[in-house]
């Protein structure tokens, strides 16, 4: 199998690997919600560091992880920020609430503010934390633990079986795909850059038809094999992959619950009890100076529509 894949089909030896599926999924969900719900680097940095520490503790093969980190960094961060510079130099004002201009282009069309830099810094931390938590989860969880853990979290077991069955068939389908592509290349179907784009796309039909027909052709056999072993008979099912919680599972679950409560408390405090008027907290901004920016002013489509309307 391609070494770009980070998924493990067999559990690894380290402490985190040995936790039960539910513990892993629960931890992942809480961390993800915490990352999504906060724009505060004082919270995001610890979450990011915890996730990176998790990755380090599993002693992974670093090569693909670093490659993917750089790839994501390049596509999401660099390209995204160049676009941001062009279309939204006011992103700092919109999100942080003030504007301290540091540099302006000769035409005055482009500028960089202190808040704009702070904004891209916060978003970068948020994205990195998110990337690291997904990577940590992918490294520690086998597909079966993923499925059984989600079921324990309340997702219907039929959806969970879809996940584990999909993982089960991916390597086979990937092999079929490569075989079919080879066979089509030998028959002379141009899939590479030699053919013009429209034709190249159409040529992919000749690749997809046999792939789809042969892959979905397996459905009957697999479904029969499952029916014959009583699948779908009961409203619930148990999972071989979900082992009984150990002492460590209880500890990690306890920490996860504490983290969840802390997140809720933070949100209550930062949004309701003592609300910060801007979306993003910044250490150099005075609370009283923050301006509220409406969506019509910040989103170019609305600005443009409004302009049309006023005419």
């Amino acid at each position, binding site marked *: *199998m391609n070494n770009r894949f980070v998924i493990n*089909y*067999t*559990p690894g030896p380290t402490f985190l690997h040995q936790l039960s599926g539910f513990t892993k999924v629960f931890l992942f969900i809480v961390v993800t919600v915490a990352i999504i719900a906060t724009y505060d680097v004082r919270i995001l940095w610890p979450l990011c560091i915890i996730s990176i520490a998790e990755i380090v503790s599993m002693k992974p093969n670093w090569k693909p992880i670093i490659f993917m980190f750089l790839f994501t960094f390049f596509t999401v961060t660099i390209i995204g920020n160049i676009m941001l510079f062009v279309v939204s130099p006011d992103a700092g004002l919109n999100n942080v609430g003030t504007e301290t201009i540091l540099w302006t282009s000769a035409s005055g069309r482009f500028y960089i503010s202190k808040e704009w830099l702070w904004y891209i810094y916060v978003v970068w931390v948020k994205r990195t934390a998110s990337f690291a938590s997904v990577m940590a989860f992918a490294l520690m969880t*086998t*597909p*079966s633990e993923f499925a059984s853990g989600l079921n324990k979290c309340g997702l219907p077991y039929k959806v969970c079986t879809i996940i*584990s*069955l999909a*993982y*089960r068939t991916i*390597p*086979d389908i990937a092999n*079929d795909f490569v*075989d*079919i592509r*080879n*066979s089509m*290349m*030998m*028959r*002379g*179907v*141009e899939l590479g850059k030699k053919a013009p784009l429209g034709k190249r796309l159409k040529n992919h*039909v*000749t690749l997809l*038809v*046999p*792939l789809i*027909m*042969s892959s979905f*052709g*397996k459905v*009957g*056999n*697999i*479904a*029969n*094999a*499952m*029916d*014959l*072993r*009583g*699948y*779908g*008979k*009961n409203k*619930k*099912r*148990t*999972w*071989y*992959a*979900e*082992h*009984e919680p150990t002492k460590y599972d209880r500890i990690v679950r306890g920490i996860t619950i504490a983290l969840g409560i802390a997140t809720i408390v933070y949100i209550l405090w930062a949004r309701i009890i003592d609300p910060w008027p801007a979306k993003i907290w910044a250490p150099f901004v005075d609370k009283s100076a923050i301006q509220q920016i409406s969506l019509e002013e910040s989103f170019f489509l609305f600005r443009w529509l409004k302009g049309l309307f006023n005419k």
Partner: protein
Amino acid sequence: MEPIISFKNFGFKYKTQSSPTLFDINLDIYPGQKVLILGASGSGKSTLCNCINGLIPFSFEGEITGSLTVAGKETKKSSIFELSKDVGTVLQDSDAQFVGLSVGEDIAFAMENICMPRSEMAPLVMKNASLVGMQDFIDHVPFELSGGQKQKVAIAGVFANDVRVLIFDEPLAALDPQMGMTAVSLIDDLAKDDERTILIIEHRLEDVLYRPVDRIILMGGGRIVADMTPDDLLKSTLLKEHGIREPLYITAMKYAGCSLEGNRNLCSLEDLEFSPENENKLKTFFTSDYKPLPENQNEPIIEFDHVSFSYDGKQKVLSDIDFTIRKGERIAIIGKNGAGKSTAAKLLCGLIRPSEGEIRLGGKDIHPLTVKEIGERVSYVMQNPNQMLVKDIIKDEVGLALQIRGRSAEEIKNTTEKVLKACNLFKMRNWPVDAISYGQKKRVTVASMMALEPEILVLDEPTAGQDFRSYTDIMNFVNALNQEYGITILFITHDMHLAIENTERAIVFADGQLIAADRVCSVLANEQVIARASLKQTSLYRLALKLQLDPESTIERFISYEAELKGGEIDE
């Protein structure tokens, strides 16, 4: 004793079909019996077993007439879940039924579905795994297992319930010869339990008879044609009439003019006691002079010149492969999965390039050629025709390669018609590809390759999943292409019958090395090669040993006699 399975005037018609698939089935199977249900494709044997395990009518809708009771339950009124408590089914496709992501999980699948707590599940999984000898593989993922191991897991997986009936649907279909033998022995061990009833559904009679069975039920046209002991069946003419291949040693006895009566234990070559008259006849036949097989003296068409290959530059998948194939030869490429035979085929097709050495086609290095250019000279036909078929109409499929190459409509039409005629598909040219049988689809894929007028045809497991009739059809067709157009044919195969009957030479791979490139009779008589390549001794070899004859010349005599017979047919 009460029968455990009892059919009374039973019939079944699929909802999607206009006429019934099973008629007038009256059959009683008693606890502890080991029964072989024999029949060609379309004889109704799989339908029969699906009635027993409840897939009919649960998964396949249709009309049931008469009555069928399994363990005292009328199946019409029962459910697939109820029946699964008594009947365990091991399906033909051991890969499809492996739904778990590890051995342990797959064995546990049925237990999970009845909500067994994990604390009870774990020891039971271990117990069932050791029943089939898979206890050391409990954490292995399906992608690391061979077909035979997956099948063992499938067997362990049906023991979650204390099943009394075990059904094996074509257990040998996906296995290489040695794994097939192991499977037959394992099934025999399971049959030792007096309470357990075993049904084997197969058309490979000789392979199943590697271990004894109590009864054979022969199916044909949706009816039970015969219900007798293996010996009686072998003596009858029913096998030939119903498209079942008889064991090779029986064919050899017939060639030698032996009477099948008067030999004890006819169904097992090891225990077979020939009558003195037959023994003499056999010895005379195999020691008589024969026309030596002709040797191909044409110019070389494929040359592997000390070829090595590695994916990562470290570990060699193939090392120092050196062989020559001459124009018009028919070659069997043999070896177990992972031995390197498919890597060699990929090298020949230019999909991967050698790390060392050179591959020559017609004397010229293929290195500068693109995959597409090589594809016009070497055609590769995949094992599963469904992975190749693109168009909806047969003639469009055959013309596809020409259409891609931008040939004129006129040329496409002419070449397609020529190929369709050569492949005996002309009358069906306007049929949809999904309306024809698996064997016919295979023929369409070969035809679609022939449109480019290749010099070499590589067929990957051309006979997999097909019964004897369809096998014979395809082989006759491929042999005709070889004789009439001089196309060189390479078969990648496990099937020793195919090698004996349809090829001149065999190239054998084991562990990334070429261990033999020799005449088929010499390869099959070489014990070391057979063992290293996971092949099975053919019964001809064992017959030769039993008669204290030289195996190589015995096999050669047999092949030569068959060639004469075939030549005779053509002359007539």
